[in-house]
């Protein structure tokens, strides 16, 4: 085991704001967001690349932030659930999840909303098959997914006007 490890200086954008940090190379992106930047909306579920609770957008595509090192996000643009809301107004996807009762305990919801964002940005009218594929990497243990499907469909409709 190495005796001393050099920390690495990184700069990135999170939710449209500049951030910088010095991180140990083994620090995971989700730890940087939660423990250093205090953005605790991104959750840690399984911590084994399964459940998707830690999903964030990196440079416009979803990633599991428990399966990336923080140093790999150097220079990247990250969007977390905190960045969905703008000027005190809920994002159309947040509104859709609320209006459709697309959550119960809410633990998986930040990740699900970001997976929904990647889907409905390109496709406002996703089929059930497309929704199923888009959220296959996000596990919900409460809802049985029916209302999440409703929320994703409504999110697509909401995004048409957005």
């Amino acid at each position, binding site marked *: 085991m190495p005796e001393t490890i*050099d920390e*690495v200086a990184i700069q990135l954008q999170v939710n449209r704001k500049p951030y910088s940090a010095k991180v140990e190379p083994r620090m*995971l992106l989700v730890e940087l967001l939660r423990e250093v930047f205090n953005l605790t909306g991104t959750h840690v579920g399984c911590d084994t690349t399964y459940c*998707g609770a830690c999903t964030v957008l990196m440079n416009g595509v*979803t990633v599991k932030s428990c*399966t990336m090192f923080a140093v*790999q996000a150097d220079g990247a643009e990250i969007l977390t659930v905190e960045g969905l809301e703008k000027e005190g107004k809920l994002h159309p996807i947040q509104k859709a999840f609320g209006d459709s009762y697309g959550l119960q305990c809410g633990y998986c919801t930040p990740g699900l909303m970001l997976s929904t964002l990647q889907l409905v940005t390109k496709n406002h009218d996703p089929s059930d098959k497309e929704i199923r*594929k888009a959220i*296959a*990497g996000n596990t919900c243990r409460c809802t049985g997914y029916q209302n999440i499907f409703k929320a994703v469909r409504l999110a697509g409709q909401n995004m048409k006007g957005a």
Partner: protein
Amino acid sequence: MYPRPFHYHRASSLNEAATMLAQLGNEAKLLAGGQSLIPLMKLRLANPLHLVDLNFVSGTSYIREEEDAVRFGALTRHAEIENSNISARIPLVHDCAAGIADVQVRNRGTIGGSVAEADPSGDWATALLTQKTEVQCVSPRGERKLPLADFITDAYSTVLEPDELVREIVVRLPEKGSGSAYVAFKRSAPVYPTASAAVQLTMDGEVCKDVAIVLGCVGLVPVKATAAESALWGRRVDDKAVTAVMEAVRVAADPQSDMRGSADYKRTLAAALVKRSIEVAVRRAHGEPVEVSHIYA
């Protein structure tokens, strides 16, 4: 969960990465998509002292369509292949890319990383072994190109030297009038398949002129089912021939019983997946577009 501490090195070219590997020695690992390596490091099943990150090397992610081949840069993400128009040229490549794990993992995971890891449950090697596939490798001594069949030597083992890495995967275009399919079964989206089957065949009317069948997850390396191929070669693709193929697949498969299922179950599953892949490949060979990918509950 935290991995053991490691030193982080960011390569700016693949040649530089190879030089770094040569200098750092056996305790260095390459970081490509990281979707297998990082989980292994978090579980402390892999404990590299040095990590050489390839993700900041530009020009390593591409799909180049040439007259007789398609070239994939080693760091091309599964999602980039899924979202390309590759299915028009080599349908099974799209089947494979579109079903690996889930959206988030496909956004990160790379074709070169998957082939170089040589996980017995990985998807790419199984699919690509039915094609004329070559692996272009680079080391401080220069470059070499190997057929994929010679590249993987055992579970998690390849011919790569400690200071050598994959630059490109080259897949020759299959001949006209041929069809292919890759179908894997997994218990849920994010997990590795329980078994998978890849088929490439050329049809002359109802008769199969040429065929390659490879099975995944049922051996330490992908299994080329030569007896199953012989059962189809030069024959009408009918129920009788397919039944003979399935019987040969059951014999060729050499799976382990584990949490994904018993060995006998996996043999039966592999045979069923081959049957399904043959059906799709034949329809595609006749010009019918068919959408398939991984199946999960």
